[in-house]
């Protein structure tokens, strides 16, 4: 079947993209010497710790020998005795088999340094934040955008145009900052950041409400920043479709306006709108770095941000893999949905 084959080709090419991105990241880490510097620092640190742990009475020669041996063992264990490209295949393989290893400084809540555990713990937090914000924004976008497109040039249309322009130009993270300043610091209605109160409430319901209370500002900020874009995209797509000839024909046939809108305009406008929504969803999973930083929301974005500045190589590689994976999967889902939504797409 042609369809299955073309989807398979798409899947393979997206997998290739994933591999290439991973390759680029690992090569850059190695080529820039970042990886070597990092591993050397670890070796030095552990060797020093080992030297301090040696018993007092050890003879100086024996001591020096033991330290040197220890250092050699470590150097070999970290693969520093081979050039960076020698470590490359094993690193890529480990990432692909989701064996991400240990983090340097980051920890899970339980204190584990296992990168898988850390990322899996943070993933739902990010998804909670992003999914809620996107769903709300999309609903607002569809509702207002279609309304505005119905009567182009109306007051609603013009107001939404201006709102979209400002919303597009307003960085979400700055909206977040203003929210914190006004609603959290000045009025004290909301917390200034984090995900739970300290200590978190025991009761599940209270705990849920606590998270909701903490999520209100970041979700609000994201919604304000995103909805303008969705409104504008919806308006443009619907407006473009509404001026197609077949819509005029449908009207000329005397079909009621709401049927024209539902069956002729929205059905055709759906695929591009869906593209925007899914790509937005995939993109903002990684794009929430800023919002999470501002609100100190313990998601993947904040983890990534901290990893960059604490030189936590394993986390950087692992998260880049995750971000790319999410994006690539979203692209694939999109391909499948295209086929489902638009009978014209049959490759």
């Amino acid at each position, binding site marked *: 079947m042609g369809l299955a084959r073309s989807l398979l080709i798409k899947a393979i090419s997206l997998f290739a993209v994933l591999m290439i991105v991973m390759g680029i990241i690992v090569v850059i880490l190695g080529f820039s010497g970042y990886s070597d510097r990092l591993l050397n620092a670890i070796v030095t640190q552990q060797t020093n710790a080992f030297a301090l742990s040696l018993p007092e009475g050890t003879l100086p020669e024996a001591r020096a020998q033991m330290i040197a041996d220890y250092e050699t063992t470590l150097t070999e264990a970290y693969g520093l005795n081979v050039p960076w490209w020698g470590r490359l295949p094993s690193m890529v393989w480990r990432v692909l088999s989701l064996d991400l290893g240990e983090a340097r400084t980051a920890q899970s809540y339980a204190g584990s340094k296992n990168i898988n555990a850390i990322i899996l713990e943070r993933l739902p937090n990010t998804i909670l934040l992003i999914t809620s914000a996107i769903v709300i924004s999309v609903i607002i976008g569809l509702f207002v955008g279609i309304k505005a497109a119905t009567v182009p040039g109306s007051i609603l249309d013009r107001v939404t145009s201006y709102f979209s322009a400002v919303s597009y130009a307003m960085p979400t993270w700055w909206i977040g900052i*203003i929210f914190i300043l006004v609603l959290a610091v000045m009025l004290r209605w909301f917390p200034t950041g984090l995900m739970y109160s300290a200590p978190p409430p025991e009761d599940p319901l209270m705990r849920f409400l606590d998270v909701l209370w903490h999520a209100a500002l970041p979700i609000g900020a994201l919604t304000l920043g995103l909805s303008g874009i969705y409104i504008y995209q919806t308006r443009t797509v619907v407006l473009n479709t509404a001026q197609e000839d077949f819509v005029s024909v449908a009207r000329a046939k005397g079909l009621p306006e709401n049927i024209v809108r539902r069956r002729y305009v929205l059905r055709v406008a759906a695929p591009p709108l869906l593209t925007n929504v899914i790509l937005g969803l995939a993109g903002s999973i990684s794009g929430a770095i800023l919002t999470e930083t501002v609100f100190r929301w313990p998601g993947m974005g904040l983890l990534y941000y901290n990893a960059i500045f604490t030189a936590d190589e394993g986390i950087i590689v692992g998260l880049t893999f995750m971000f790319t994976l999410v994006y690539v999967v979203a692209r694939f889902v999109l391909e499948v949905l295209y086929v489902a939504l638009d009978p014209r797409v049959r490759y």
Partner: protein
Amino acid sequence: MPTRTQEALQEFWATKVAKVGVVFLVTLILISVFVLVFYPLNFGEELWNNPIVWADNPKAVGPSWTQAFSSQAQAEHLIFELPEPVESDFSQGFKRQLFQVSFLFEADDFPQFTSFTMRDVQFQEDPPFVTLILHRPDGEAIILLDVDIPYPEPEDSPPYVFYSEDPRRIYLSGSPAVRLAVATFARRQLNMEVLVSDIAAVGPEKFMFGVPSSQGGRATDVLKGEYTLSVLVEGVHADDAMGSARFVVAGQLFGLMGTDNLGRDLAVGLLFGFPVALFIGVVTSTLTAGVGGILGVISGYKGGKVDMVIQRTVDILNNVPLLPILIFLLFIVGSSLWNIVILLVVFGWTSLTIIVRSMVLQIRDGEFIQASVALGAGTRRIIFRHILPQVAPFILAQLIFFTPSAILAEAALSFLGLGDPSIPTWGQILDRGFSDGALYLGYWWWIIPPGILIVIAAVTFVLIALGFEPVINPRLRRRR
């Protein structure tokens, strides 16, 4: 085709958004030109990041105009230059100079700090004595400090001149000698149980400018009225002297936009951000549109292997999670303005290439191209005469649309601490404020204005792009 251009301009100007956008843009450009004319180009390194320049400004205080909304009279920022002595005489082997300034202090709050700076101290043998005395409205006087001027090096020869290149600034609020003098004054003249450690904790100004509060304890109220600072310079030679001095009573308000926690005048930094934002926006978008447009035309017109390579590159770049990769790369290559611009271009051109390519594909198959080919027109002629004129307006519109994205991206990267440290931008001012806790301390003047400026700069180009839309897409033209 001048008529087409004119028509397009008319169509553009007909929209209200375009007019607003153009007005904004002209304002941005005028401010940028002003800054470029009046600011040194190495402003970031020489001035903005140089703490000495800002030492005498109050730290982290709001704008002066907020006084209008405050019920309390906030202390103004007072800077007194003492260019020459009010008295100067030499008799019986003693040289005596008196510098003096009187000022009214009527605020409800104490000054943030006080500082004293002296220049051009010269002497023949021994360093002169320099004594600072503060006379208070209640008739009391505090001998704040005897300035300790070092002896000259043995290899130097008289007359010795100190502090001419490098004026000596004494931060009175942090000086142990001043603390001791003020503590002694508070115990003897104000009858308060005050220790030097108390002064160190709350600052000597609370007692220099205060009287015991009715609340008792160590609390003080502001003593309002006329203060006089006397600086006495005593030497033994006729030409032993101090050239000039400066006395600063730091206020709780400053300038048009307030200051940050280093005392930097935020108005100055924000102004410098205008040309930088415009530069980043315009250069990035021009390069992006240029690369995207050219590759799109090549990809569409040439086809074959070139097309495939370009399209696969587009595929990869399109599937990259942009922000994490940008942060990662910028962290690795180091943040400079050009690195930011280049990275934004490298990851920004793909969307335009896709669209231009599909436009070119349609045009290429048009009959008039086939006719030109049949008439013997070369590739170059076809591209420049037939293809570019058709895709150019679209590329131009995208160029404008890329500009706000570039401004916002730079702001975001700067906010994450990846901005070019030698060139202050709005994003960096925000980053500094956020990471130094301005947000949680409620220093709104440090947080809100840079954000508003980022939004205004971005909105300007969004509006112009919106105005361009009906030009590119005739369907969106309003029926008139």
